[in-house]
């Protein structure tokens, strides 16, 4: 049972090594140079087409993910944030190979990511955990079968070893063996979410895509899941694409932050820098909508309904053909933004932003 072994012994042994690696390097440029890219996407797009009405044969296009390029480093937590409908889940499904891309390429470990290539076995290396712990587990199957299924399918374990295998995985996600024979509906949200994670871990993946893994959970339970994820990153060298809209969580666990809006990437920054000073105007709006948890009541509710609101669904009706996607809502916009699209480019300190006027603060 290689999967089990890996999680029990490997973890402890490598703890010290990892500490050394991450602790020493301070110089940011050096940090990035030494980092190994595990996944990169080049000009990736996903368009959905749909008929406006039964009588209209003209089709509208939703650019759910629109020409994006990014990379994820090994052993990092790469957080993707942005409001409803900005394309986060679409991106997750593209990387997981659950939907077909419209154009662009994804590379994994330098090789073209093609799930049909059976020899490369990408399915085993990349796993996805979904937002909803209630609907993502088969309600008719017992927990141990759910957890061990991918491992049996990938010939990692024999069918008769399922129970032991599942038990050890449960232990790794902090659950007791008692639930091996339970059904999903008998578990709490947090337990179900951890079962979902245990199932993904069963094939010893290298990259985990987590689509809002704690959004449906209570505060006390979400802390349990986040601790588990941080643990796995530190001990097992796991890499994550972590999708969320809770910036407090991003700040707590992420190494880098990727901000999306209207299917495009607005900014990619190391988490520390992002939370010191967001580069993109939209990042600023997101940052300012974080509720100041440990501060005195000081929310500025006014002004949120005006131009600075930066909220509501992205208008898909016309589809912006040129200019900045964020133009209509931007507080920093100038004439040039309406006609030209700002490319995602280096704005210093290993940061990228697609904006002609980065680091412009609201209210100026």
């Amino acid at each position, binding site marked *: 049972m290689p999967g089990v072994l890996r999680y029990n012994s490997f973890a402890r042994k490598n703890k010290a090594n990892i500490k050394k690696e991450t602790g020493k390097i301070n110089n940011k440029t050096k940090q990035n140079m030494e980092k190994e890219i595990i996944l990169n996407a080049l000009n990736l797009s996903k368009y959905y087409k749909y008929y406006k009405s039964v009588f209209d044969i003209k089709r509208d296009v939703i650019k759910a993910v629109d020409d994006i390029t990014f990379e994820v480093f090994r052993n990092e937590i790469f957080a993707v944030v942005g*409001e*409803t*409908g900005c394309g986060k889940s679409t991106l997750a499904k593209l990387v997981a190979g659950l939907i077909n891309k419209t154009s662009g390429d994804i590379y994994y470990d330098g090789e073209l990511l093609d799930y049909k290539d059976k020899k490369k076995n990408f399915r085993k290396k990349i796993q996805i955990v979904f937002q909803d712990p209630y609907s993502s587990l088969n309600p008719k199957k017992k927990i141990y079968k759910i957890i061990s299924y991918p491992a049996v399918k990938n010939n990692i374990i024999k069918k008769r070893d399922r129970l032991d295998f599942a038990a050890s995985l449960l232990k790794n996600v902090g659950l007791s063996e008692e639930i091996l024979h339970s059904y999903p509906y008998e578990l*709490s*949200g*947090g*337990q179900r979410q951890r079962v979902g994670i245990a199932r993904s871990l069963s094939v010893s993946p290298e990259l985990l895509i987590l689509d809002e893994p704690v959004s449906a959970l*209570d*505060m*006390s*339970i*979400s*802390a*349990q899941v*986040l*601790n588990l994820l*941080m643990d796995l990153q530190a001990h097992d060298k796991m890499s994550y694409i972590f999708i969320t*809209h*809770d*910036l*407090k*969580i991003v*700040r*707590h*666990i992420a190494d880098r932050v990727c901000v999306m809006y209207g299917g495009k990437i607005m900014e990619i920054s190391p*988490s*520390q820098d992002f939370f010191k000073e967001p580069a993109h105007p939209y990042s600023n*709006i*997101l940052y300012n*909508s*974080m*509720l*100041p*948890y*440990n*501060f*005195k*009541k000081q*929310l500025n*509710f*006014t002004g*949120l*309904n005006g131009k600075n*609101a*930066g*909220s*509501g*669904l992205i208008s898909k009706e016309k589809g912006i053909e040129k200019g900045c996607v964020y133009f209509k809502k931007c507080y920093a916009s100038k004439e040039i933004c309406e006609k030209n699209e700002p490319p995602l480019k280096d704005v210093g300190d290993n940061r990228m932003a697609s904006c002609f006027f980065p680091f412009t603060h609201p209210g100026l």
Partner: protein
Amino acid sequence: MAYGGKTKTMNLEIKDLTVRLYPKKNAGRHINVVDSVDLYVNGGEIAAVVGESGSGKSFLGLSIMRLNPPDVSEVVSGSVKIKCPGEKEELDIMRLNPKNLPSVRGRLVSIVFQDPNTSLNPVIKIGEQITEAIFAHKKIGKPEAKEIAISYLNRMNIDGKARFNAYPHELSGGMRQRVMIAMAMVLNPCFLIADEPTTALDVTTSLQVLSLIEKIKLESNLGIIFITHDLSIAKNISDKIYVFYAGQVMECGKTEEIMDNPLHPYTVSLINSVPSLPADYMPKQKLFTIPGYLTKDDFTEGKCRFYSRCFKRDNNCLKNIPLNEISRGMFARCIKV
């Protein structure tokens, strides 16, 4: 139970409210899903009810309006008295003749539900859904009702004229939730129960809805019971907080006092389990967790309801624990406080 005192003209006071939940098909025993709850809110005030999922918050909200499912649950004791300006006398919703309930719902006390997707009718235009609510209480003409509906949509920062004929699916999640609030507010009630109105929304949209709730509170001197599982929202929007666990108020008091100086082990644990934002903040630190999770067993009598997860428990906690006043206006249900 109180902090700061009641205003004379306008308040909603819940006393000793107990709601029993019966198991389906006689499996197991009944539980008090809401257990001797005392709560009150003045006009122009927001009282937050904070607790995790399954703790009975929605049941509390529904029971206040006697909307709790009658097939499985029953109010066994308590009163919900409301005093509104313009009403001749105080009335107790729990003692109201059922046929008078519709005249109270929406007009004196209104409710906004957790999920706007299931509470709006998908095949009826939103404008019509709002005018329906008006017709249920007022005998006025269609154009007049339409005008009122539009003005309320405008108040919610939705272009009423343009969106009157929109179907729910044509609106974003945040807009649908605001339509729900418009619907709840259209009869100008004195009190509003908001059951997790922002839980289904993302941050920016959620902030928009919160700011709106703050605005209507100020404009209409509305008293609001705001149900949420998010402490940071409660902290930012409420005047006082009721920390709810397994059907009981575990701790209550002024928002600042509870957040700065929590007394009950559950409140302390909750506050510690959230990633926070102080200046000396350390990322990647292990978060504090509360072991286990809330189950139906926690609702049983004869022990502290937080016993199974408490870091301070001992054998003295194996009895019913009363809610005690610890200092002026601060109450906690724990023998160790």
